[in-house]
C-alpha cells in the first residue's frame, strides 16, 4: 500500500510492505491493535507503542511521548495546499488589516491581525504573491474556517 502524508510542510511518501499480520516501513514493523494503538518493533529489537486517531484528514500519532500530525493526501491528487486562501483556524475578531487587494506580499509578511482566544495573532503570507481579495475589515467577527484573504502565488 502507498500513502502520502504532509508533516510540517513536507510531503512524505510511505510504501508499506506486509506479512500476514505485521506491516513494515523504513525497517520498522507495526502490528495494529483494536484499541487504537499499534505495537511497534524497531529494527534493533526494541519495542514501543503508537496511539493513533484520525480527525478530518489528519492522523494524530503519539509515539515515545511526542505527537505527529500527518495530513493524508489523496493518492494522485495534486498537492492541494490552498495557498490561495488563508483561513481562520479559530473564531475571532479582525483587529487590523495591513494589506489591500492588488498589493504584492512576501513570504512571512503580516497581512492581518486577529484577536482570538484572548490573544492577538497575525496572519502571515506563506509565499510570495499578490493579494487578490480581502474578505474582512477591522472590527469584523470571523468564524472558524472563514477565508480571510485570497493570495495568488507568484510563479
Amino acid at each position: 500500500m502507498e500513502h502520502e502524508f504532509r508533516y510540517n510542510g513536507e510531503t512524505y511518501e510511505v510504501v508499506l510492505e506486509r506479512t500476514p499480520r505485521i506491516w513494515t516501513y523504513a525497517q520498522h514493523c507495526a502490528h495494529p491493535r483494536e484499541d487504537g494503538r499499534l505495537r511497534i518493533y524497531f529494527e534493533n529489537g526494541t519495542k514501543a507503542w503508537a496511539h493513533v486517531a484520525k480527525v478530518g484528514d489528519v492522523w494524530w500519532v503519539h509515539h515515545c511521548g511526542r505527537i505527529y500530525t500527518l495530513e493524508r493526501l489523496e493518492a494522485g491528487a495534486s498537492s492541494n495546499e490552498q495557498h490561495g486562501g488563508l483561513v481562520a483556524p479559530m473564531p475571532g475578531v479582525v483587529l487590523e488589516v495591513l494589506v489591500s487587494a492588488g498589493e504584492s506580499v512576501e513570504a512571512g509578511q503580516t497581512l492581518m491581525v486577529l484577536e482570538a482566544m484572548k490573544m492577538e495573532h497575525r496572519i502571515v503570507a506563506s509565499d510570495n504573491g499578490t493579494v487578490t481579495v480581502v474578505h474582512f475589515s477591522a472590527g469584523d467577527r470571523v468564524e472558524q474556517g472563514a477565508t480571510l484573504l485570497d493570495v495568488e502565488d507568484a510563479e
Partner: protein
Amino acid sequence: MIQRVLVANRGEIACRVLRACREAGLSSVAVYAENDRLGMFKELADDSVLLEGDTIAETYLNGAAIIEAAQQTGADAIHPGFGFLSERAEFAQAVMDAGLVWIGPSPQAIEQMGDKMSARQIMKRAGVPVIPGVEIEEEDETHAMQAIRAAAQETGYPLLLKATAGGGGKGMRVVHTQDELEQGAQAARREALAAFGDGRVYVEKLLMKSKHVEIQILADAHGRCIHLGERECSVQRRHQKVFEEAPCSSMTPSLRERMGQAAVAAAKAVDYVGAGTVEFLLADDQSFYFLEMNTRIQVEHPVTEMVTGVDLVREQLRIADGQPMAVDELNIRGHSIEVRLYAEDATNNFLPAIGPLAVFRPPVGPGIRLDTGVREGDEVTPHYDPMLAKLIVFAPTRHEALQRMRRALDEFVVLGTTTNIGFLRDLCDVPEVISGDTYTSMIDDLYPDGYKFVPKQEHLDVALLSAAVAETTGMHRLRTAAKQSSGNVASPFQSLNRRYP
C-alpha cells in the same frame, strides 16, 4: 452552617471544589454557560443552573445571575474558584448582601490587594519589602507617556511595565532598551485598557534571573493566620506559569521563615480570612520583594497540598463556615511538581489550539495526581482559557519527582488537539530545571527564537508507518472522531506577544 455551595466557575477548578463539597457532606450547585452544557463539572454538582448569554460577561462574570441562581436553588454559600469573579470585591459584597456566605476574604481585603498601588503602600507600611518602581497615575496618553519616560530614566533598563489593575500577564511588557520603550508602553496601555477598562501602568525595575516564589497562607476567623511554605513558579511562558513546584530548590529553613512571616504580615495588614497567596520575587542574594497578593485559591495550590498534606479547598470551606482551620504544625515533606497542560502550540509561540479530544489518556500510578475538567470526547473550544489539566507528581525528593514527571508526560496521550506536553517534557531535561536554577525569564533565554521540536527521523518514520497502517486497516473506524478540525497542520497563524482579556 453552610449546607449547599454554589460554585461560580467552570472546568477543573469547579470539579476540584465540587468534589471537596461532596466529601465534606455539602450539597452543591453548578452554574454553566450554554457551551459548557456537556462539561464534566456540571455533572459533579447536585444541581445546576444555566447562565444565559453568549459572552462571559453574560455568564461567568454575571454576578447578579449567579446570585439569583444560588437563591433559586437554595445554595447558602458561593465559592468563586479562581479567575472570573474571584477577585471582584463588589461581587463578594453583593454575595454577602444577599445573605449568602462568600467563600473568600472580605471585599475590603480583595479591594486593597487588587489594586497594585494600594497593595504596595499597605505592604510598605507593614514592613514587607517591595520592588523599587514608579506608579504612572496619568490617564491621558501624552502625559502618561511622558511620565513613563521619566520613570524609565529613574529605574533604568531592563524594566517591566505592568497594568495597575492587572493580573495574569495581561498588560505586561518587558522593555530591554530605550528603543523599545515607546512601543512597549503603548501596547501595555492598550491591553490594560482593553482588559481592565483602566489604562494605568506601573514601571518597575526588572530583577534579572530572579525566582518567582510565593507563600500560601491560611487565616481563619478565630485569629489564626499561618503560612504553608512556598511554591516556586519561575518557569513561565508569556508571564504565565507552566511549571510549579514545592518546595523551592534554593529555599532554606530560615529564608522560608522570613518569607512566611512577611506573607503572614501582609495578610494580617488587610485582616485577611481564608486561603491566599503572597507572591514574591526572590533575588540571587536571597533578598525578596512583594509582587502581589492573590486573594483566592490558586491554580498551583496542589503542590502545597502534596507536600504539606493539607486540603486547602476543604480548609476554605471550613473557614468560611466560621470553624477554626484544621491544620496542625506545618510539616513539609517530599517534593511536588505541577505542570499546566495547555491546548496550545508551543512551536508557534504558544498559540492556543482547539479541536476534539479524540483521545485523552492521562498517566496513572503512585504519586500522580491529575486535576482536570475534561475527558475523552470533549471538544476544546476557543471560548475559555486553554488549560486542559494540571498534572501533579509527588515523590520523596526533587530528583525522583522529576523522574516521575518524565514518566508521566511520556505516557500522557492526547490526540485531536495540539497540547504543550512535548514542550513540558523537554523542560524536564533542561539543565536549569534539573539543577533547580530556574528563573522567570528562563524560557525566553532558552528559546530566543521560539521553542522548536525537531523529530528524530526514526520516530517520524514510525509515525508515518503508524498512520499508513492505520489508514490501510481502517483504524479510524474504531473511534468516532469529532467534527473535522484543521489542527495545527500548516497553520498560517502566528501569535503575537499580546494578550486580551
